[in-house]
């Protein structure tokens, strides 16, 4: 397995408070890799650093052979890394279609863009039905679909999904998880951050457990699901 993303001894701080305290992990080509952990473990901070919104204090980020840690945020997507942020962050006063088009902001191939928009509508038919509707009027689950669809519009090599199931109904969560499986089957490499550890680990190839800024455990998704401490801390079992 070749690693598409390699993170080495990454440290990130907000002022004097260090949120990520020297973590290392890999995301292999074609696999789903999950970071799990409780609130404040540093998962979102890690993703925001990978996409350039935060600057690391030290450490290395190697993506597809290139160092990312000094690249400004707006240039990262063109390298093939797309980020669907926590809380979805769709553009509320634009239509669904305009949101999707912004996902392809740097692309010039209008035929390919049209094709990818149709693909997003096939993946999420509800978005196609409401393409001219302001995105702010969508339900939480629909907004999540839009955020994922928008991230895919850049034709990324690596898709980062931050808490895609947060605040969703169980039914909607199943739909989102099924989409992740579908994307993986189509060959997409995915870095997933989830609080719903059960669902996330069962579809992951690799998993890392984060705790207060450190990675405390890692293994295959199946291994972690069987691990006693994971079961206790994250799967709610005694």
């Amino acid at each position, binding site marked *: 397995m070749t690693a598409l993303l390699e993170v080495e001894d990454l440290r990130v701080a907000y002022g004097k408070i260090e949120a990520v305290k020297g973590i290392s992990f890999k995301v292999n080509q074609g696999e789903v890799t999950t970071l799990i952990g409780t609130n404040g473990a540093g998962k979102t901070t890690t993703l925001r650093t990978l996409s350039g919104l935060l600057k690391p204090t030290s450490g290395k980020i190697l993506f597809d052979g290139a160092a990312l840690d000094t690249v400004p945020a707006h240039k990262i997507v063109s390298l093939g890394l797309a980020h669907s*942020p926590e809380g979805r962050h769709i553009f509320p006063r634009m239509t669904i279609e305009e949101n999707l088009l*912004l996902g392809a*902001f740097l692309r010039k191939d209008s035929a390919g863009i049209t094709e990818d928009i149709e693909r997003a509508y096939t993946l999420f038919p509800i978005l196609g039905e409401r393409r001219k509707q302001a995105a702010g009027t969508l339900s939480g689950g629909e907004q999540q679909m839009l955020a994922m669809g928008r991230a895919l519009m850049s034709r990324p090599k690596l898709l980062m999904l931050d808490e895609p199931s947060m605040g969703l109904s169980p039914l909607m969560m199943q739909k989102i998880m099924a989409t992740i499986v579908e994307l993986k089957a189509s060959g997409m490499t995915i870095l997933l951050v989830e609080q719903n550890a059960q669902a996330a680990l069962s579809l992951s190839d690799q998993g890392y457990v984060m705790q207060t800024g450190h990675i405390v455990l890692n293994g295959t998704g199946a291994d972690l699901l069987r691990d006693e401490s994971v079961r206790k801390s994250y799967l709610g079992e005694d």
Partner: protein
Amino acid sequence: MHELPQNLANGLMLGLMYGLIAVGYTMVYGIVQLINFAHGEIFMIGGFGALTAYLALPSGTSLWLALPVMLVGGVIASVLVATGAERFAYRPLRTAPRLAPLITAIGLSIALQQVVWAFYPGAKKARTFPQFHGNPIDLGAFQLQRNDIFLLIAAPLCMLILASFVRLTRTGRAMQATAQDPDTAKLMGINTDRIIVVAFALGAAFAAVAAVAHGLRYGQVDFMMGFIAGLKAFTAAVLGGIGNIYGAMLGGLVLGIAESLATAYIQNVPGMHQLGGAGWANVWAFVLLIVVLLVRPQGLLGERVADRA
């Protein structure tokens, strides 16, 4: 009441001018949540830029021919100062507490006034601005001043261009995205630093057009002209709903017309005969602002957004 159409026409002209300046406040606020209190001075500098361009032309050039050159001169001056201010005064404070750039803007406003006062030849007094001569055009119900024709054409044209720019161009869509969610805009690959410069430059260009209209209307420019005009335009932007470009124009029109009508008619209200006339125009303009802030704090076209105080 036979003078009502004339008062409305006067208010409309005033309103178009306020609206043009207000666009600059509202666009910058919409994208970086900064009230650029130096924007009135950007307007003033546009007036001096236009005057400089006029003086550089051979004397005797017809004003119709000179006008495009004056516009270019005004726009260049305003845009240079505005983007310079963004780059060297505001950008270093992007992550500072909000009060810091606000105080910087006020300081910059005073500094720009004083620089023009001290260094522009003859600017210690008002300088004469070229005007069209000839009688007002009689349109029956009201008369149109020849010098206002420019504003009447330029303001709607500017708004049309801006609206199409924001809706139809790639940079326009990037501006909307940056205004709605700057971090996520970056994730889309939008260079938000560049978008901020574009917002400052567009607002400055509009202010320069307004300054030319102001110069033509009043026949002079002076280093303090940006102070009251800026405050009025800021009022117009808040009135219309700050952050909304159509709101800025609407707010300008409402303010201009209200001011014109208040000046003309308040004195007819029993017991208020001392409160009319031009000397009270600014008072009524700001009374209107206070009333709107009490009744509809988000402005006429603004949306109530909790985290945008």
